[in-house]
């Protein structure tokens, strides 16, 4: 089906047939690792219609041609930004932060060479709540924090959400689990009711644009100790999950840890990591003697 105006697009229920939808999903999967099933057609199509309007394309076919062959890749980035879900908040799934300060970091510190930095990667970092939560937990709750140089890297595939993360401005909903004591220590209130995270924390986190399925972009991440990758792999298919956790294996140093979301289990993706139960959560460790 084709249409020639924005108004027409709004009235149209469907701009792509099932074959075109399948073709688009295959393309998007190849570029991002994100796998949309048939049941997601409405969700995907709403966003494509929006991008068709914004780019003044005349049809899905016209838009898809531009998407595939645009040299800059700019439109693909816009589309990725609109397709990704970024809902999160501070201290989400906080039992993993308990495991971080009570078990994972002490484990890392026991085997880590003195003087080498402890490296943590938050991917996808969304609007920044996760990497900032990691930072606050470490500063507040790990008694050896001052004895180590700790690097926190935070990456996402969505440029718009990365800009939000860098700005460090959060609304009440995002901060609902942050105590007033921590708010006054690490945030300053803004006139509109939002909060701005302090410069010291904002400047300590290294934000970067990374597509996890692009080996060119991930190969620079090496010798990491801990990876937080929560609620990303649920959007991937089986092969995409395998590839991503195998990439994590290369990113981590021996004995490094991966923390996944509560509904994600490494055992259904790969057997190359060792499950470790810490408190109320299971995390996954690259063997110390890993080849």
């Amino acid at each position: 089906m084709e249409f020639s105006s924005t108004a027409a697009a709004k009235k149209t229920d469907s701009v792509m047939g099932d074959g075109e939808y399948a073709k688009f999903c295959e393309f998007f999967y190849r570029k991002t690792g994100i796998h949309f099933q048939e049941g997601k057609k409405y969700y995907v199509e709403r966003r494509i219609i929006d991008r068709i309007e914004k780019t003044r394309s005349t049809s899905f076919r016209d838009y898809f041609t531009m998407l595939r062959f645009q040299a800059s890749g700019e439109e693909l980035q816009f589309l990725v930004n609109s397709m990704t879900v970024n809902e999160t908040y501070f201290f989400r799934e906080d039992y993993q932060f308990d495991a971080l300060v009570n078990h994972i970091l002490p484990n890392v510190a026991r085997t880590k060479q003195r003087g080498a930095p402890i490296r943590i990667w938050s991917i996808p970092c969304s609007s920044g709540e996760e990497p900032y939560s990691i930072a606050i937990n470490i500063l507040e709750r790990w008694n050896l924090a001052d004895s180590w140089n700790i690097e926190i890297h935070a990456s996402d595939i969505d440029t718009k959400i990365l800009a939000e993360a860098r700005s460090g401005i959060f609304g009440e909903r995002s901060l609902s689990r942050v105590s007033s004591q921590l708010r006054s220590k690490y945030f300053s209130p803004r006139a509109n009711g939002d909060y701005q995270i302090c410069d010291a924390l904002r400047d300590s986190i290294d934000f970067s644009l990374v597509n996890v399925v692009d080996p060119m972009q991930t190969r620079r991440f090496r010798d990491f100790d801990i990876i937080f990758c929560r609620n990303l792999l649920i959007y991937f298919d089986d092969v995409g999950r395998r590839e991503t956790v195998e990439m994590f294996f290369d990113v981590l140093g021996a004995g490094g840890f991966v923390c996944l979301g509560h509904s994600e289990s490494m055992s259904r993706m790969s057997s190359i990591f060792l499950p470790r139960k810490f408190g109320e959560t299971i995390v996954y460790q690259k063997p110390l003697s890993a080849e």
Partner: protein
Amino acid sequence: MALVRASQTIRPPQEAAAQDLPAVLADLASPDASVRRAAARSLAAHPEGAMAACDQLEKETSPSVRAVLFTTLIHLQTPKVAERLSALLRSDDTPLRNAAIEALQEMPEAAASVLQSLLKDENSDVRIFAVNIIGALRHPQAPEWLGRVIRTDEHINVCAAAVDGLAEIGGTESLDDLEELRRRFKDNAFMNFAIDAAISRIRGL
């Protein structure tokens, strides 16, 4: 100390030329597992290197390199690759065998032909593995293949594995075959229990 800005310590992304196949194959023979792992991953861009990946799988000892080789072979899947992987079902190395089963489950079209052959294998263990693969295979004919197993295979364990598979992927068209199987093994309590469970699931009870 504590938190430090990290941007000075991570190299910016660099364009790297794709390795040609001889260079990748040379790396695959490296004594360093991380080099072999990278080579195994690079092989995914070289369909003509699929058999080399299969060869390496048969001698590779590092679990992490093996894992990447399997992922690469899933990418490169062809009937020939599926055939090579099916040979690993006879391996005494359990992790290798299980990984081969998982990989074959990811290549429904490529594995279809070899799985049909495996269902006729004289070794009942191999037939059970084939049935297990089919039970998790995203192939429209998978229920039909399992139906044929319970109609024709004489080994009770092979049939029981197929009943388990049909409980997951079977439809109402499997019900007659299941009842017929019950008659064939009418004195076996476990088979009766498995058939009842499968029928209940198929009927959504």
